[in-house]
């Protein structure tokens, strides 16, 4: 439990206090070297190689080799051929993130302020989904949402779903799965920042005749903003790149850009266009994150 919340807490921007015993010798560089070298070789270099691959001549092939022709047109091909999957990735991830906020906020609030001696139990419940395999629990949704399962039956009884309506293989199923899989990433940072709120501030608000709603809007919500920002990023980024939910719970018309990248790289072996799709996804996410973090005013997060 401490692991996940520590990881989440670390992202909320509580930078460590300045080093107590700062040492100026070279020891720091020696400690950094192996880890940083690993990240340089297996994270930074591949990213540059991905950009290079996205500019290869699209007429080459894996067997014959690719010529570096600086084909910016690959990006045009990627964007025009796969507009649907790109849009679906942003839309599904956006809706899933919104739903995750709606679900996670009351839960994080209850754990931080109302849980009493059940706090640890509830936190373990939050990370319980991580205890079993991502793919196995996504497949469990296939059983839950299946055509003769209890969810579909209930929705049919309530006439929300038509007599031959179904949930599986629809965008509803994909978004349900995405929300489910990433909601703990929303709960933990939200809880971390709610937990830190000094309750005397709320008491002071009440002394000044703020009612429950006002003190929530003016005190609790603004103070939980860093957690909310970290949570939305931790949910949106992996959801936008995910293709497991679209593959297992959706059908071809629900495919997201991850499905396209996977298919182009591993089945079609069309590396230049696949790399262009990957780069576009990366740039779109970086742009969104920068705009969002700047608007939310929590730049210390980065």
């Amino acid at each position, binding site marked *: 439990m401490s692991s996940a919340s520590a990881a989440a807490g670390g992202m909320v921007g509580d930078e460590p206090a300045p080093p107590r015993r*700062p040492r100026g010798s070279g020891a720091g560089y020696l400690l950094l070297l192996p880890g940083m070298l690993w990240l340089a070789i297996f994270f930074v270099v591949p990213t540059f190689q991905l950009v*290079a691959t996205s500019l290869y001549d699209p007429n080459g092939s894996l067997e014959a080799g690719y010529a570096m022709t600086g084909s910016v047109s690959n990006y045009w091909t990627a964007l025009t051929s796969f507009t649907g999957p790109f849009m679906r990735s942003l839309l599904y991830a956006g809706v899933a993130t919104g739903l995750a906020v709606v679900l996670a906020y009351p839960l994080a609030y209850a754990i931080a302020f109302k849980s009493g001696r059940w706090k640890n139990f509830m936190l373990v419940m939050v990370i319980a989904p991580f205890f079993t395999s991502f793919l*196995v629990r996504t497949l469990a949704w296939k059983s839950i949402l299946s055509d003769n399962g209890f969810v579909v039956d209930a929705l049919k009884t309530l006439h929300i779903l038509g007599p031959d309506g179904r949930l599986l293989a629809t965008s509803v199923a994909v978004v349900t799965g995405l929300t489910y899989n990433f909601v703990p990433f929303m709960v933990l940072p939200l809880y971390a920042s709610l937990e830190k709120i000094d309750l005397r501030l709320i008491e002071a608000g009440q002394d000044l005749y703020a009612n429950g709603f006002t003190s929530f809007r003016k005190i609790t919500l603004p103070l939980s903003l860093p957690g909310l920002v970290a949570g939305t990023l931790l949910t949106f*980024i*992996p959801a936008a790149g995910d293709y497991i939910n679209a593959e297992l719970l959706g059908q071809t018309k629900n495919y997201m850009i991850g499905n396209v990248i996977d298919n182009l790289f591993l089945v079609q072996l069309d590396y230049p266009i696949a790399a262009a799709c990957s780069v576009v*996804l990366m740039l779109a996410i970086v742009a969104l994150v920068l705009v969002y973090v700047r608007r939310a005013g929590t730049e210390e997060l980065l």
Partner: protein
Amino acid sequence: MSRVGRWVVDHAVMAVAIVVLGYMFLPIFFVVLMSFNDPESRLSYTFDGFTTANWSDPCAPSGMCGAVVKSLEIGFLATLGATVLGTLVAFALVRHRFRGRAATSLLIFLPMATPEVVMGSSLLALFTSVGLSGSLGFWSILVAHVMFCLSFVVVTVKARLAGLDSSMEQAAMDLYANEWQTYWRITFPMVFPGILAAALLSFSLSFDDFIVTNFNHGNTITFPMYVWGAAQRGIPPQVNVVGTTMFAVALLLVVGGSMFQRRRPV
């Protein structure tokens, strides 16, 4: 507002929270339930009948247990690599002064903020460009897993290290302990819970990874790769036996760990 009304408002948040927890727990319940399923056909996803056969012969589906073992091996080695490298980096960040701190922090943050599909495809592009695409397998999965676990180790250990009270170390130094003794007798034991948490996190990230692995696995089949392959042909119910076992082991570790920590306040 009536007393009943106030009681309802007070408890509404808790009620919503319990419903949300129910939503988060529902699939786990189904994983346990389906591990006792006796499916009518290979492509059945409904509970067709009760059996304990899946539990008495979990390795019946060919290749599944081999894939689990492969995942355990990779998970263990990736955890070892990422924990050692990441702990060193965390010590440097908290305890040492060096140039390029901002760039270092950015380099640690970026892998956590990059979608897995981008990391996986980047690595494949690199391995292909240096002519290694034919020999991908165990080693390339391991290299990739160490890479994406590293940042999480750094963040977790750093959080523990930054919250430490240095007066214990100063006391040890005052009592003529040299740096080495101070480190192994004082600092390391105090940081250890953070390192252990980081290692457990790494293991679960590695064991569960599908997307990055899918791009770089060659012919090596890990458990998530096995499940993905099986999903196209029909899932054997034994997959849920593995899922249930993973859940039980992780739950025992977390509950046991927190009881152990409560007895020995560090």
